[in-house]
């Protein structure tokens, strides 16, 4: 049996395999490099970067739930300059693409960080307009199609770099948002960011998270994420990196069939630090066994007659 071609081309961003790791769940790669060979990962989306170092929210910042967790890290990071000086050169030693996840509190800030990160060694920028854990910016930008269009367009004008826009699931209609990002000039979409959620300790009658509300991730969100990738892929012409609860190769194939051109693994790294390599190996074996020669033969190849597709879409009650 011949080995399948795992490489993907995300509108100019070429990865040697479709397995990436989701921002905020893999740090800057150092910790997991002790468990997996970073050369086996298509791309690393680094921890969300802000202009100045950011302290993040108070503890507790994590609450567990059925097959998932809530986090309210609040984008703690050492700042973009620190990353460029201390982490980027180290990441450059590996055969993996580096994607800078950028976060601003206003459009000017997004543009400024985009300019700063448009350097050699950073292969793409991932515009995070969907973080639920910070007061200013973040989610506020990602939920209104007009705002999405504006911020993407201005960042597009500020940089010639490959640009991914990361979408929030906490919206009325993901298709409108996806279209707005595409119209603004995104080369690629990534989705989904975390869903807002809450966990309460009934004994103390207090929320577990210091901030009350946080972002839900892990296998619990997977069906929502697959549905959203499917819906967005049905309206845009640019590729999508799908994520949300991927824990094994079967989850990954689901996202590819729904229309994702690559996938990203986040929270599952916490439970199984070797998950990226396992998904890669299992995916390759499964493709060989089933006669798939390339990832392209899977992307969007859902066997779902168009006639039924209408009845599948779900209207959010007004």
């Amino acid at each position: 049996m011949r080995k399948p071609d795992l490489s993907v081309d995300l509108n100019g961003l070429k990865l040697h395999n479709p397995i990436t790791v989701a921002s905020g769940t893999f740090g800057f790669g150092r910790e997991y490099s002790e468990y997996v060979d970073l050369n086996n990962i298509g791309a690393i989306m680094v921890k969300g970067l802000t202009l100045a170092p950011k302290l993040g929210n108070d503890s507790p910042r994590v609450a567990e739930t059925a097959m998932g967790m809530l986090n309210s890290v609040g984008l703690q990071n050492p700042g973009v300059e620190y990353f460029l000086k201390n982490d980027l050169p180290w990441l450059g030693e590996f055969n993996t693409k580096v994607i800078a996840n950028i976060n601003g509190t206003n459009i000017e800030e997004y543009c400024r960080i985009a300019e700063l990160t448009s350097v050699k060694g950073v292969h793409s920028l991932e515009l995070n307009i969907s973080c639920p854990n910070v007061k200013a910016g973040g989610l506020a930008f990602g939920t209104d199609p007009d705002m999405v269009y504006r911020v993407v367009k201005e960042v597009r004008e500020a940089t010639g770099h490959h640009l991914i826009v990361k979408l929030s699931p906490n919206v009325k209609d993901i298709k409108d948002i996806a279209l707005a990002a595409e119209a603004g000039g995104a080369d690629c979409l990534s989705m989904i960011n975390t869903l807002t959620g809450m966990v309460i300790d009934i004994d103390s009658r207090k929320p577990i998270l210091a901030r009350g509300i946080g972002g839900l991730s892990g296998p619990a969100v997977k069906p929502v994420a697959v549905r959203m990738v499917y819906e967005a892929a049905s309206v845009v012409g640019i590729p999508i990196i799908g994520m949300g609860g991927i824990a094994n190769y079967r989850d990954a194939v689901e996202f590819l069939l729904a229309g994702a051109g690559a996938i990203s693994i986040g929270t599952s790294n916490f439970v199984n630090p070797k998950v990226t390599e396992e998904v890669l190996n299992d995916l390759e074996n499964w493709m060989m066994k089933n006669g798939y020669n390339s990832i392209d033969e899977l992307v969007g190849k859902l066997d779902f007659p168009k006639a039924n597709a209408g009845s599948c879409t779900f209207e959010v009650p007004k």
Partner: protein
Amino acid sequence: MKQLFNCEVVSKTFLNEDVYTLKLKRPQQMGDIRPSQFFNLHTKAMPYLKRPISISNFDEETFDFTIIIKGEGTKILSEVKAGDLVEVQGPLGNTYSIDPEHKKVLVIGGGIGVPPQAVLSEALKRDTDAHITVQLGFRNEAYLVERFDGVADVLQIASENVDYDHKGYVTDLTAKALEENDFDMVYVCGPHILIEKVAKMCMTKNVPVQLLMEERMACGIGACMVCTCKVKDDTMPEGYWNKRVCKDGPVFWGSEVLFDA
């Protein structure tokens, strides 16, 4: 590459109604283990995330965890039987700093914080000539006391509900000990409130103190930033930075931690 281990359960012993010790087979490839380090434990039956637990004993062949049943995870873990496999990631975290020059040290453990102090006390006994005072605090019955018997020069036990040396909080004993002695080093592990009280007492008396902190964790290796401790940092506008308990800790110096921000 670091390994994840599936370790066979050698034995499980209940020390009282809700405290048990798991003894696991130690894989040969596992590196050195040091006092204050912890492991991420998991079984398929447990809830989603792994549970961080301190090492409470080890030799060449086996290693132990002494665990208090707190919620669902530690309850399900208490149901494993000899021969079952437990998934183990570690050892993780930094280590207590032990100075052979120290003449007089104080070790304090409360509740969940007692098990790691047993490993520490034994290391102090082995690696230093220090006079070792150990103070342990419990809500009810004491456990693991036999581990401290042979190594502590002075052993004092406080319980809120049972008569030992002192009925009440272990910090009452600590206040007295700090009044009457000049310690070179204090080591404390336990609930947050205990750690904070001891740290503040030591700071007032200018006695160096190492704190073994606990925080809710997800990755346990320093990648997710959910387990933080406020550490003084003059270069930050707020005067502190959030360090990671799992990777930069779990041991911090009393002088670096900010309790009141």
